[in-house]
């Protein structure tokens, strides 16, 4: 067992008792990375020097005594679309392959205040567009459970790094399922907070009305602490919500007696693999045994969510990515004929195939003559999808279903069929459209691959989501399973 497997409280007790130093944690993380990275390939940038310097500084503070941050000494991996002052941030794109930010995302300042240690930057689908990490210009990350399979995406590096125990926790971002789906595929916990709960300042924008940063961790307890550290209003993000941050440790009770669970029939119907469905139904039995009740409900507009999402997200992306023009940062094409040519050539050379496809789709949906038929129509359908959830939440505390219709697929299996790839997000996309919090927790294995259960809550009610997830986790052993491919059964 590695020191990185210790529970947070015990780890902090050992640090206080002098049995353990932050540098031990950082060295454990770095050596685990050396050992597993040839298989997993989760990192784009490893900051060994910076991590060691941070560890030395924290160890000095430890000796001197005084206040300790919530995440004191924990080695963290950060998705490479979250800007880190002085540390290369590429978004897994050729366009930003040499971009070194001059400021920190708000979440990075918050992690610094909580005193975690940044080990490096994690792989992802380029600009967070994709669900397999195959769209990374730096090459794909591999699933620690089976290196021939994808880790999911777009936060695939974050999920794989936590699954392989390379870091204590990771940050990801979720626009249509990009935290939850890779967490499900890699057998770890992934939380997408309510839209507005965590500042997006310094998160390179993909679809601004949907993007949200959240934790990927090996258990629910860690997710509670990381969320506590990063949540809160930020004047630098005008869409950040001015809503008080509760004490999320209140969720760690193990008590779900009387919890009312709605189970959408649309999330267990056609297209959901039988083994995934069985795992979720077995999980619902666990909830019953803990004193919760569940009932089938309907979210009737679910089948329209993927279409609405791809129009909206791609439209927002086509606008957001207009900033990548080769003038102020990023790649610039050689020998342009004129200014327009500089934009065109830089963008065409810098972006990968999926990013270009989404920019094209979004530009089309926003273009004159098509705006009403596509963009406005999708916005109206978004309203219907949000209303579906509002109605169910009048009677239920949480909604439970699978995180993804299947387990992790093979690298190369779906990359040439964008529409099939998009349909993997059928259970996660509606949650982003409605802006709700949701977590994916491991709920078993199917043919040796992890299955994720999704628990969705009311806006700003992360506490109930976490309470349900924690109670389930305490009653089961699934989260303790370790991927054999990286030497930990």
């Amino acid at each position, binding site marked *: 067992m590695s020191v990185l497997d210790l529970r947070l409280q015990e780890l902090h007790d050992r640090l206080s008792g002098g049995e353990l130093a932050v540098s031990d944690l950082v060295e454990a993380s770095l050596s685990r990375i050396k050992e597993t990275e040839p298989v997993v390939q989760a990192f784009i940038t490893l900051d060994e020097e910076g991590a060691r310097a941070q560890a030395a500084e924290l160890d000095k503070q430890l000796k001197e005594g005084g206040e300790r941050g919530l995440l004191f000494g924990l080695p963290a991996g950060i998705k490479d679309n979250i800007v880190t002052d002085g540390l290369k941030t590429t978004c897994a794109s050729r366009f930003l392959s*040499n971009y*070194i930010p*001059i400021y920190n995302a708000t979440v990075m300042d918050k992690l610094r205040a909580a005193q975690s240690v940044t080990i490096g930057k994690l792989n992802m689908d380029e600009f967070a567009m994709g669900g397999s990490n195959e769209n990374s210009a730096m090459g794909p990350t591999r699933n620690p459970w089976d290196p021939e399979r994808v880790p999911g995406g777009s936060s695939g590096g974050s999920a794989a790094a936590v699954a392989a125990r390379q870091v204590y926790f990771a940050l990801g971002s979720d626009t249509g399922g990009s935290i939850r789906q890779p967490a499900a595929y890699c057998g770890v916990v992934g939380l997408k907070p309510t839209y*507005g709960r965590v500042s997006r300042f310094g998160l390179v924008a993909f679809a601004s*009305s949907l993007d949200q940063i959240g934790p990927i961790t090996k258990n629910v307890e860690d997710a509670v602490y990381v969320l506590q550290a990063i949540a809160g209003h930020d004047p630098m993000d*005008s*869409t950040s*919500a001015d809503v008080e941050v509760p004490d999320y440790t209140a969720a760690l009770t193990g008590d779900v007696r009387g919890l009312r669970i709605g189970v959408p029939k649309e999330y267990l119907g056609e297209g959901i693999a039988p083994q995934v469905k069985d795992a979720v139904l077995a999980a619902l039995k666990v909830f019953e045994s803990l004193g919760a009740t569940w009932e089938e409900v309907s979210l009737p*507009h679910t*089948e*329209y969510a*993927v*279409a*609405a999402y*791809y*129009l909206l997200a791609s439209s927002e992306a086509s606008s957001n990515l*207009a900033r990548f*023009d*080769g*003038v*102020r*940062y*990023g*790649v*610039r094409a050689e020998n342009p*004929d*004129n*200014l327009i*040519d*500089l*934009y*065109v*050539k830089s963008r*065409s050379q810098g*972006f990968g195939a999926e990013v*270009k*496809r989404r*920019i*094209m*789709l979004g*530009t*089309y949906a926003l*273009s004159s003559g098509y705006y009403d038929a*596509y963009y406005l*129509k*999708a*916005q*109206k*359908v*978004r*309203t*219907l999808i*949000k209303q579906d959830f509002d109605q169910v939440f009048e009677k239920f505390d949480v909604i439970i279903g699978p995180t993804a219709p299947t387990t992790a697929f093979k690298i190369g299996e779906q990359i040439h069929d*964008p*529409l099939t790839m*998009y349909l993997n997000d059928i259970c996660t996309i509606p949650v982003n*459209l*409605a*802006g709700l919090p949701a977590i994916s927790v491991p709920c078993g294995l199917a043919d040796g691959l992890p299955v994720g259960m999704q628990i969705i809550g009311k*806006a700003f009610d992360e506490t109930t989501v976490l309470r349900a997830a924690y109670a389930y986790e305490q009653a089961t052993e699934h989260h303790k399973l370790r991927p054999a491919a990286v030497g930990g059964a």
Partner: protein
Amino acid sequence: MSISIQDVEHVAKLARLELTEEEKAKYAEQLGAILNYAQKLNELDTENVPPTSHVLPVANVMRDDEPRPSWPIEKVMLNAPDEEDGQFRVPAVLE
């Protein structure tokens, strides 16, 4: 819904992208398939449904118009592909 090579070229121009012939053919096919799938939305009557652009009930977050320090030019220029005298250098805009 079928997307022609001309449609693809028009959209690429708006998006400031230059595509190879191969890319044009591929995107014509793939965008056609995605937009066909999107036709599904027309099954729904949304005549009286308001659009949602944002889920939070926030609008026009204002602050006092007070000057605040900005980044020093040297720092802003650190990532510039080409610069001169603290300014981004680009090809001539006017002939």
